[in-house]
């Protein structure tokens, strides 16, 4: 009833694309090779899907080169509006466009989108359940040199507490493309959390698994029309599950850029003869409790890893699920410990704030060793 045109038909064509040529979308010869940021993948995917559906309109607040909406702007200038440095205005303009049947994508840095335009997001987009996609790039400490004012560490907490809002946080460029498609075909408000640094594409075998998982869930969503049933995608290291039939000792629930850190941690833990499962939670809301319950049964220790405040983010969301499970395992939340960030290259910040692969490995080993000592 909210929108003029039938939302289910508005992006049927995009939905009908069963195979996506990732190399073509990203404009590379082999997408498994280069390091690509999720924001760049978003910008290129938006340009690609923009061609498929003329109903897509994109807004930016003077950061289109950084958010990569510039790709869309250059290709479809008539459907791109740069509203200037006015985030509140941008979100309300988006609500107006969406109320007239447009699929509207707004993009700026996560901190300015969620922080500055929260009232507009809550009272205009979410309350009216309008077809607006809120894309926050430069999330977390990974923003680096710009410093604390530009590092969004609260956005997951804020956005997942708003009714009608979905929260997506893709792990690499390829998952970003799939999630952009997902959000464009879903008529609800969606928050897409992206980060600044170039990061590797997750290994081809695991990538296939992500793709197939997403494709299964898309079947469910297209039948339900409200994409309420997205699952977190489980990424399990192949050698781990085959070499250790009894299962892993620990599991790391990670999201966004931290999935790539978690995979490095998994490698180092293996060198210490610990088996670790990595679970990529790219759909933070709605959060499917079943995979979490399953992982809880399989391992002894649970960890969450996020480039976000430990209050209210991924760790909190997982702990909310665990709190309702009998015999749930302890969950150690690893993230930014309720402090503000600083200005430095992001790898230095990750090291200083305990989010680098080395620091995370050290922390996990410390906790598991201490527990084991207590038990023996």
């Amino acid at each position, binding site marked *: 009833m909210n929108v003029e045109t039938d939302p289910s038909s508005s992006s049927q064509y995009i939905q009908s694309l069963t195979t996506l040529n990732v190399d073509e979308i990203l404009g590379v010869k082999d997408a498994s090779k280069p390091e690509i940021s999720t924001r760049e993948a978003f910008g290129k995917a938006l340009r690609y899907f923009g061609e498929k559906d003329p109903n897509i309109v994109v807004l930016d607040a003077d950061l289109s080169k950084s958010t990569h909406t510039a790709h869309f702007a250059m290709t479809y200038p008539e459907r791109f509006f740069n509203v200037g440095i*006015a985030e509140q205005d941008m979100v309300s303009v988006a609500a107006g*466009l969406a109320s007239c049947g447009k699929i509207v994508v707004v993009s700026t840095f996560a901190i300015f989108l969620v922080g500055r335009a929260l009232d507009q997001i809550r009272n205009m987009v979410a309350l009216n359940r309008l077809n607006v996609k809120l894309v926050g790039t430069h999330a977390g400490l990974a923003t680096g040199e710009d410093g604390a004012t530009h590092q969004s560490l609260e956005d997951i907490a804020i956005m997942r507490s708003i009714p009608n809002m979905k929260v997506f946080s893709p792990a690499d460029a390829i998952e970003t493309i799939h999630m952009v498609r997902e959000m464009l075909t879903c008529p609800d408000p969606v928050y897409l959390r992206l980060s600044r640094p170039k990061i590797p594409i997750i290994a081809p075998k695991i990538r296939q698994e992500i793709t197939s998982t997403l494709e299964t869930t898309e079947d469910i969503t297209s039948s339900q029309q409200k994409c309420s049933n997205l699952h977190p995608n489980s990424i399990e290291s192949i050698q781990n599950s085959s070499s250790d039939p009894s299962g892993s000792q620990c599991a790391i629930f990670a999201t966004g850029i931290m999935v790539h850190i978690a995979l490095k941690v998994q490698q180092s833990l293996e060198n210490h003869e610990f088996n670790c499962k990595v679970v990529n939670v790219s759909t933070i809301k709605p959060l499917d409790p079943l995979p979490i319950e399953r992982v809880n049964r399989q391992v002894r220790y649970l960890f969450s890893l996020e480039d976000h405040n430990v209050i209210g983010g991924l760790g909190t969301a997982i702990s909310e699920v665990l709190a309702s499970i009998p015999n749930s395992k302890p969950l150690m939340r690893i993230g930014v410990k309720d402090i503000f960030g600083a200005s430095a290259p992001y790898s230095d910040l990750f090291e200083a704030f305990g989010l680098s692969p080395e620091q995370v490995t050290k922390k996990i080993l410390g906790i598991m060793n201490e527990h084991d000592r207590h038990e023996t």
Partner: protein
Amino acid sequence: MIKNLDTELSPTKLLPTELPPTGLPKMKLSEMELSPNSIKERPTNSLDQMPTALNIRRTIMSIAKNLKVKAAEIRQKVIELIARGESGHVGGSFSACDILTVLYYYKMTLDTENPRWAKRDRFILSKGHSVPLLYAILADLGILSLKPKDILRQLHSQLPGHPRMDITPGIDMSSGSLGMGISAGCGMAMAAKLDGAKYRTYVLVGDGELQEGQIWEGVMTASHFGLDNLTVIVDKNNLQSDSPVKTVKNCGEIADQFKAFNWNVIEINGHNLIEIINAFDMVDMMRGKPTVIVAKTCKGKGVTFMENNPVYHSSLINDHHQKDALEELKIQNECGN
């Protein structure tokens, strides 16, 4: 800019000389009687339908007279809605009543059978607390059918305390948190341009509301993108919740501010039906820029003891006052002035 249009109409004022012949006024001159606008195709102007100056004058006067009666009727319905719900903002509803009566019964093209008709004109009540007025109009037009459970500001009612587009038929945008309406209106106007659609978007804001910073973000957006299909009406009743706007935080000369942002500005008396009609008709002829109508109004207008009385921003109306107010409005309704 037209300052205080005379109540006496003269054709020169309706047809500004600088306009080319193609820019003839889009007035529904055939409609002597008021009717809810359910016209799907807008009237086209051709030279043989060109009315004489006298006809225009007579028609406008007649429409204005009928609208005045309608406005008094709407004010009665507002009083009844607020009294039944025992809560609601009467002052701001009354100050905007004449403006909205002209918009809904004269200007806007709507389909009362299909409130979501894609080509309809849009209206955003940015000062959402005046929603009892909008409910009264929507109910009177038959867009909103009121059931016994529809009590203002009560559970399971279609009449929440602030407008909700997902609950009430005929509401084009939810509001309540002030300052967002112009931006949302820009979005609707952009959508119309993208689709090559002719519908217009009207946004009503309060003068106190102009203290919100986002208002001016939206004002810049509208002029930058040349949204001549967007019209903002400022209900300048000089009062806000705490005290007069001037004492809380003086907004200065509203007309000058909009002019500085490259808007067309029309200043009118917001309770003079002929001035309101003329202003809205003139807006249709403006090209390339958005238009603001700064309407000088009186909070509580229509009921003597409520006029300019800050007590009636959102106070409860007791039975005694309700009776007095309805009595006064009934007289206006019958006399037609």
